[in-house]
């Protein structure tokens, strides 16, 4: 008798178990991370505040606890989770579409363009739609990211309206260099010491400015993108052996590539507008998840989102609590903690083969 082979499942339930562990880790991280700060709030009190806010019976919630937990820290933690999830899925999608392990969410010039926008606002005081302060910075970054994206797409698009991955990557590099040149020039010529510092801080990313309004937007954008992209999980799997193979499996390769490349670039532009260009998460999280749960996207995408969310919650918690009275740029934290972890996993994988 034939033994029925489970389709694409080496260890039945492995993805599910990883998902359950990561979900528990995410919820636990939110509760614990919200408690950490200059005033420590025990996990029980955090849960009481959240229960109270959700209209559930909660006892002994003080006004000060509610203010610290719900008004100050929770939006920042939620924003970090949403940003981490969004960056991780954007990286996973772009790595698959370009079949390039080094692809990250900023592949299509989004971070370079956003930095140009941010620099223009910080150093040159360009105003965007009459906005001021942090809102102007976000709007400038978003507009810059969109302009750079449009330029990359114009350069990369072939005669037949296709979007060849190799040329797209190179167009992204070219526009990125151009943006970097503009940024350096403007900072050198017009920037004083303070604005140079602000530009540097912006390029390393920060969630310090995230309030409930922006956290809600980040959450809606990240969840929407996740659901929309999971619908294309099988199409992304089909790209494993390249375009011809994907096409022979019934994938409309040009339509899918355009949709997902532009979609993830817009997702990234939204995230960057609120948090700056946080590196490493989108590059590394999908690789780590692939090592643990395999490369199939119906597992990879949701698990990357969860892992990215957990990673960025802790990175941001470290960023705001490592130094007294000063924030560490979150990009520094993600790299310092992420790189050794990644190196460890790579070594382990190379030994197991």
């Amino acid at each position: 008798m034939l033994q029925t082979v489970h389709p694409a499942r080496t260890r039945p339930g492995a993805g599910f178990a990883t998902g359950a562990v990561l979900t528990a880790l995410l919820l636990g991280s939110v509760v614990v991370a919200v408690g950490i700060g200059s005033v420590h709030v025990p996990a029980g009190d955090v849960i009481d505040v959240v229960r109270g806010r959700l209209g559930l019976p909660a006892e002994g919630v003080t006004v000060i606890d509610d203010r610290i937990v719900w008004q100050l820290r929770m939006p920042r933690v939620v924003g970090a989770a949403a940003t981490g999830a969004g960056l991780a899925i954007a990286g996973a999608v772009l790595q698959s579409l370009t079949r390039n392990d080094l692809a990250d969410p900023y592949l299509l010039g989004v971070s370079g363009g956003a930095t140009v926008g941010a620099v223009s606002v910080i150093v040159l005081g360009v105003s965007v739609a009459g906005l001021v302060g942090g809102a102007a910075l976000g709007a400038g970054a978003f507009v810059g990211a969109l302009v750079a994206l449009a330029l990359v797409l114009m350069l990369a698009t072939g005669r037949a309206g296709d979007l060849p991955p190799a040329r797209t990557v190179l167009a992204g590099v070219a526009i990125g260099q151009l943006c970097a040149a503009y940024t350096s020039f403007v900072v050198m010529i017009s920037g004083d010491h303070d604005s140079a510092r602000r530009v540097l801080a912006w390029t390393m990313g920060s969630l310090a400015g995230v309030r409930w309004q922006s956290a809600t937007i980040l959450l809606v954008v990240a969840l929407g993108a996740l659901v929309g992209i999971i619908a294309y999980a099988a199409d992304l799997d089909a790209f494993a052996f390249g375009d011809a193979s994907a096409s022979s499996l019934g994938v409309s390769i040009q339509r899918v590539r355009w949709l997902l490349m532009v979609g993830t670039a817009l997702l990234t532009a939204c995230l960057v507008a609120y948090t700056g260009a946080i590196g490493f998460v989108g590059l590394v999280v999908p690789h780590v998840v692939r090592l643990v749960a395999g490369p199939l996207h119906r597992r990879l995408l949701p698990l990357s989102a969860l892992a990215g969310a957990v990673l960025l919650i802790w990175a941001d918690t470290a960023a705001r609590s490592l130094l007294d009275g000063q924030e560490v740029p979150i990009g520094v934290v993600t790299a310092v903690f992420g790189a050794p972890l990644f190196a460890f996993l790579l070594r382990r994988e190379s030994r197991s083969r």
Partner: protein
Amino acid sequence: MSILAKDVTWGVGERAIIQDITLDCPEGTVTGLLGPNGSGKTSLLHVMAGLRRPRGGVVELAGADVHRMPARDRARRIALLEQHASTTLPLTARHVVDLGRIPHRGRWPAGRGEGAVEITEAMRLAAVTHLADRDWRTLSGGERQRVQLARALAQRPSVLMLDEPTNHLDLAHQIDLLATVRELGLTVVAALHDLDLAAAFCDLLVVLRGGRVVTAGPPAEVLTERLVRDVYRVEATVGKHERSGRLHVVWHDERAVR
């Protein structure tokens, strides 16, 4: 299902790669595409499989235009085995075969167990069941080819397009693969280099040169010493093997005609 190419022309930029090719493959037959490197075999297979839209002409699958079909419908009927398949991803052989079910699945991951029977059957037919949990990248060339065949069979196609399917295979596996494919009773179009194998396993041979059809017909009519000289520029003797009754081509002194 029968597949028919009518006056098909396709090219890159100004250059035509294949020109005015007409090819009729009745249901259940095996058609061999022969011709030197660069004669347009792969391009013709890709156009007939619906991957490239022809500049002129039409490809019909049981009377329906292949290039007007929704891509998913097309992929449920035509499967393609590529000449070179490569991936950087750590896919197991079973993952690879599982890809063949993509055209049959919905967009949402509800039907994850879908296709278990088809996958098991395809892996048995291609004799790769024992490789199921191996990383595809660690397989030998021949094993990879058979796993890709299993993936194509998991699509449950009516038409199978094979691009040099016996590349990398040893003699026993070459015969095995072509015999397996023949026994399935599918309509098969295969680009082949080995003339003896082509003669043994094909109902119809089509010879291409410079993107055009030179000749077409049953192997005994097509495979002649003159054809081998004209198309491949190799001097050869075409004979009939006494015990098997099969055609065989023996080349000699190939430089004499260069």
